[in-house]
């Protein structure tokens, strides 16, 4: 008979769980954390100073020009938005499917979502060229005419989709943390900590009636987030698919983008969780190698889906008989930007196939390297979509090249500093694993005496 592996190893008691998870919040940062934080802060400085220069001097600093009117900003926006999707998949969709293993990683994945969407949000604003007029995107009676927005534009759908996604993700994340903030408040030794976490917990007390409403709301939010997250990347893909450019104007884009988003997001979750496990060794009992293996399986599966989408695009380009369409795809694979196409295919389709081997799925160094490759590959996927489609359109007179400048590099590289600074702060200010959600799944895979039921027998993850 199959038995489940233990979700939480080390035969923890309820009190030990509380102690283990609160420890990073309640102790002095280690030298490793400080070093990472300083590195992230330096990168953040590059980001801020590049943004100041671009906003101050103008978009001419970046590579965006005729004919490539969408450049690093849009590529990097789609990249970060995609990363966010795995967090909602883990916290909402796996919750609806009653996947108990999600509990250990849901909080950090959700934090990753919030920070990735925050990072992503900067880029379309920057791309408008006049970010100080960003409020023009909102529909409200104004004194500019009144000049309203065009509700038929996919770019405006994006504004609504991304801002709704951001708001709901933040709320979902915060609601999940309220009981844990109450735990931190009740453990607090000094007054400032007591006041800060008391305010964050809103005075939560956890009566059975509160929990009953709480669980219902959590279920509702998961139910709402599920179609929401699918809609967000669908609408992002509409930015491309609704236009008439060969290479963009395809109906496969919504599912292709959603699969790619989940793929890249899990890549980032694996990258971050390997680092969290190294930084906080006690978390290894909660985020076990089994958790990492399951995520690697998802990376491999979604990698295959993305590969299938690449193949379908080529097939349809040929099958449609449209010469412009087939030109774009031949140009992608063998034209001047073929190097970016083959980086994409190698990183997204071939390298994740290594996860067919169990030893690689369960090796921390291997999965770290592969997850970095996935991140690189997925950035290049958006590069391929944006740049190769634009650089050679219908008329050869319109052809041109994309000249990546230092400003493009600065915002791309710097955005990681922004993201990592937020994530590192989060790791020390909030419980990085949901304490209240973890305790009910404590007994999964344990026998009646609280011991590992699967040891010695066959097992099933």
């Amino acid at each position: 008979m199959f038995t489940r592996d233990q979700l939480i190893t080390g035969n923890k008691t309820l009190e030990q769980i509380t102690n283990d998870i609160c420890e990073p919040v309640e102790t002095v940062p280690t030298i490793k954390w400080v070093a990472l934080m300083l590195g992230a802060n330096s990168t953040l400085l590059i980001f801020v100073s590049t943004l100041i220069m671009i906003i101050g001097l103008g978009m001419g600093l970046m590579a965006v020009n005729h004919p490539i009117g969408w450049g690093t900003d849009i590529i990097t926006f789609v990249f970060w938005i995609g990363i966010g999707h795995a967090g909602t998949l883990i916290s909402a969709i796996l919750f609806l499917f009653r996947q108990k293993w999600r509990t250990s990683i849901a909080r950090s994945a959700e934090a990753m979502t919030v920070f990735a969407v925050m990072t992503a949000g900067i880029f379309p604003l920057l791309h408008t060229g006049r970010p100080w007029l960003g409020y023009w995107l909102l529909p409200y009676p104004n004194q500019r005419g009144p000049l309203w927005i065009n509700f038929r534009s996919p770019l405006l759908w994006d504004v609504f989709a991304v801002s709704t996604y951001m708001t709901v993700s933040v709320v979902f994340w915060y609601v999940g943390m309220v009981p844990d903030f109450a735990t931190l408040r009740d453990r607090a030794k000094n007054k400032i900590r007591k006041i800060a976490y008391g305010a964050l917990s809103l005075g939560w007390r956890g009566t059975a009636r509160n929990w009953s409403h709480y669980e219902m709301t959590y279920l509702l939010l998961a139910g709402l987030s599920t179609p929401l997250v699918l809609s967000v990347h669908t609408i992002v893909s509409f930015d491309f698919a609704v236009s008439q450019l060969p290479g963009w104007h395809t109906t496969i884009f919504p599912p292709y983008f959603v699969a790619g988003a989940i793929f890249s997001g899990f890549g980032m979750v694996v990258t971050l969780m390997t680092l969290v496990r190294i930084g906080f060794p006690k978390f290894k009992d909660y985020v076990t190698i089994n958790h990492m293996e399951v995520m690697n399986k998802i990376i491999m599966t979604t990698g295959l889906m993305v590969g299938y989408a690449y193949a379908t695009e080529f097939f349809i380009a040929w099958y449609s008989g449209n010469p412009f369409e087939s030109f774009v795809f031949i140009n992608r694979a063998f034209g001047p930007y073929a190097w970016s196409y083959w980086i994409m295919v190698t990183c997204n389709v071939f390298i994740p196939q290594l996860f067919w081997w169990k030893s690689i799925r369960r090796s921390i160094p291997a999965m770290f390297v592969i997850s970095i490759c996935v991140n690189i590959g997925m950035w290049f996927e958006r590069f391929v979509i944006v740049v190769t489609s634009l650089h050679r359109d219908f008329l050869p007179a319109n052809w041109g090249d994309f000249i990546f400048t230092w400003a493009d590099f600065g915002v791309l590289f710097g955005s990681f500093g922004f993201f990592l600074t937020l994530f590192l702060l989060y790791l020390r200010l909030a419980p990085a694993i949901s304490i209240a959600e973890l305790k009910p799944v404590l007994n999964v895979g344990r026998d009646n005496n609280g011991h590992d039921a699967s040891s010695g027998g066959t097992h099933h993850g």
Partner: protein
Amino acid sequence: MAKNKKVTVGIWEDEHKLIEAARKTREAGFKIFDAITPYPVHGIEEAMGIKRSWIPYICFSFGILGCTFAVWLTNYVAETEWPINIGGKPLTLWAASPGFMPIIFEVSVLFAALSSVAALLFVACDLPKINPPIIDPALTSHKFAIFVDEADASYNTAKIQQQFKEWGAKETRETEF
């Protein structure tokens, strides 16, 4: 901020004994009582006789409200206030609506989500509470409690404390909540 109430509380260290005690408390005829747990204990709703949460009704109603609002806003702006011809796309209400679906969907989800959370935090759980009395700091970590309110018709602290002890409570006392 409401004045604190006097309650008699028993503290348990085992989830299963807590559920059993909650069931006995209800069967003993107490009406105004509640449990405090560090995490959602499954089965306690049935044991205590807690009804299903009403928050889904709020979620659904506000979702419909958000949907109606978005249908009105998009059509009002695109048809009445700022009608612009974009590639000959239709302006009239039903012909134009497919292009507004993403907006309508997102606004419905936003209304439904925010209203549910507001209902949970500010109505159902009566938060925020400033400096609420904490019966035992371990109640958000590894201990469980049941308390009976003094407003209950059969409130008698000595008797309740004795019963809680019989039902497995490690500790009982009269306190404020």
